[in-house]
């Protein structure tokens, strides 16, 4: 038999994935059922409360992302929860698989499969209830309040194109891409903090966000000439008189590269830190 690599072996990783699934499938199944129940109750509540535009896109958009972030971060915080206790930690670390394989297994479940499962679940409930909303609208046509504008059929919000949603999501996919970074941060938190990893990661992320905003407002903006942002990397400036507009921006290729890095570099960096932290973990 060919000896398996010490860093990554596909067959060993598949065994790890199969073991994780088998030990957790009941819990995952019940959690998905619970999430589907909560989504149904929440959308039914909206359906009852908003008589004008039930299930409008903003509700769908907010529900999708709030649900994705809350359930995702809670789940990610449990992925390495074994390491918080000596007994479970030894069992986890003693399994003859490399730390990279253990990390990739957690990323598969915590990021890829969670995202896919949550999105499928969301649409299963969302599409059904948007249909109900549209039946209500077509059976009793209505106008927007104090206008003669007719309420049209509600579209299903597409999280990948952002159509009909807020412009920040349509143009930049801000929350969609930020999810992978936030989820990765919670996975790192579950390795880094032995206890209360969810709360501690929330606090660290809040402090980090506050620090970035402070640096931006207190340090970066004062260095720029008066003006405003134009897109991701552009800056419109005008002189003291206010009649000479200048647009300073990166070339398209450079801007695209910066956007790509901002979207994908943070999760990858966080995975690398998690890998090192996992290798250094002592229980």
């Amino acid at each position, binding site marked *: *038999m060919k000896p*398996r690599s*010490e860093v990554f*072996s596909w067959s*060993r990783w598949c*065994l790890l994935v*199969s*073991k994780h699934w*088998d*030990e957790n499938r*009941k819990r995952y199944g019940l959690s998905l059922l619970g999430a589907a129940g909560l989504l149904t109750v929440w959308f039914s509540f909206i359906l009852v409360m908003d008589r004008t535009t039930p299930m409008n896109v903003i509700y769908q958009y907010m529900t999708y992302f709030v649900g994705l972030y809350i359930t995702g971060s809670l789940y990610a915080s449990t992925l390495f929860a074994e390491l918080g*206790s*000596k*007994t*479970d*930690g*030894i*069992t986890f*670390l*003693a*399994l*003859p*698989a*490399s*730390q990279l394989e253990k990390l990739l297994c957690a990323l598969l479940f915590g990021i890829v499969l969670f995202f896919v499962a949550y999105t499928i679940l969301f649409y299963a409930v969302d599409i059904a209830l948007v249909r109900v909303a549209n039946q209500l609208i077509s059976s009793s046509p209505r106008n927007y309040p104090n206008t003669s504008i007719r309420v049209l059929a509600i579209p299903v919000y597409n999280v990948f194109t952002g159509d009909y949603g807020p412009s920040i999501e349509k143009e930049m996919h801000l929350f969609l891409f930020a999810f992978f970074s936030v989820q990765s941060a919670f996975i790192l938190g579950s390795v880094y903090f032995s206890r209360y990893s969810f709360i501690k990661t929330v606090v660290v992320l809040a402090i980090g966000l506050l620090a970035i905003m402070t640096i931006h407002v207190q340090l970066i903006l004062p260095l720029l000439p008066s003006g405003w942002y134009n897109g991701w990397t552009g800056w419109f400036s005008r002189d003291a008189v206010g009649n000479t507009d200048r647009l300073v921006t990166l070339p398209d290729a450079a801007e695209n590269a910066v956007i790509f890095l901002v979207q994908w570099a943070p999760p990858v960096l966080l995975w690398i830190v998690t890998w090192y932290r996992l*290798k250094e973990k*002592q*229980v």
Partner: protein
Amino acid sequence: MVTIQNLHFAYRRRKVFNGLSLELKPGTIYGLLGRNGTGKSTLLRNIGGFLFPQQGSIDAFGFAPEKRQPPFLEKVVLLPEDFQLPPIGLQRWIKHMAPFYSLFDKRQFERYIGEFDVPPDARLNEMSYGQQKKVLISWALATNAPLLLLDEPTNGLDIVSKSQFRKVIAGAIDENRSILISTHQVKDLEQLIDRIMIIDEGRIIFDQDLESIASKLLFKFSFDPEEAARALYRESSLKGNALILRNTDREDSRPDLEMLYKAISLDPKTINSIFRP
């Protein structure tokens, strides 16, 4: 097999090992004794790669344990005192654990489970603590790992199970395998251990095999006050004074490890001086 040199380890400010050195050889069952908090479990976790030496080195089968490489983890199996098993059936658990250990032998596992009277189709979370421990002992032995680290293995086992445990371990040892047992229950394992190591104040203060102990020390009961006065250690009992004497006349006696442990704890220098060549 395993060589530990000048191991230093501390938990924050509490020093545990202060230059500990030892060697584990194949074909031996080691008994690791020591007071509470002297670092028996910490030593096992250092050898197993779950804690890292802060100074000094550990070499186990050519691996540095702290790297936790999969081939090393197949060779060194630690059975901790406390453990948590997943809420699944025994057969399913074995199905998922076995492929990670290339030398795992299912028939061997089934034999041990049978010897321990563990129901083979039970769910792990519905078993008693003692039954779960028997499952883990059976599994650890069936991995055929050349080094087993057992932390208080007889804790939680009833009298019959302790005897089954001794029988199973005695049958599982061979010239390629070593077992290091950390325990307080010296009496449970007296007939099993080949070599005794006593740990105190961060060092191994005594490390001798039972054959050598039996040849150098005499364990006996006596009402003779002169003999009692010459004893290296004595305890009064209903059967007379239980004594440890120098075995100058090469008499046969069965070492009482509990008494020996107490004697070494009181005066390690004198006892160790007897074993110097």
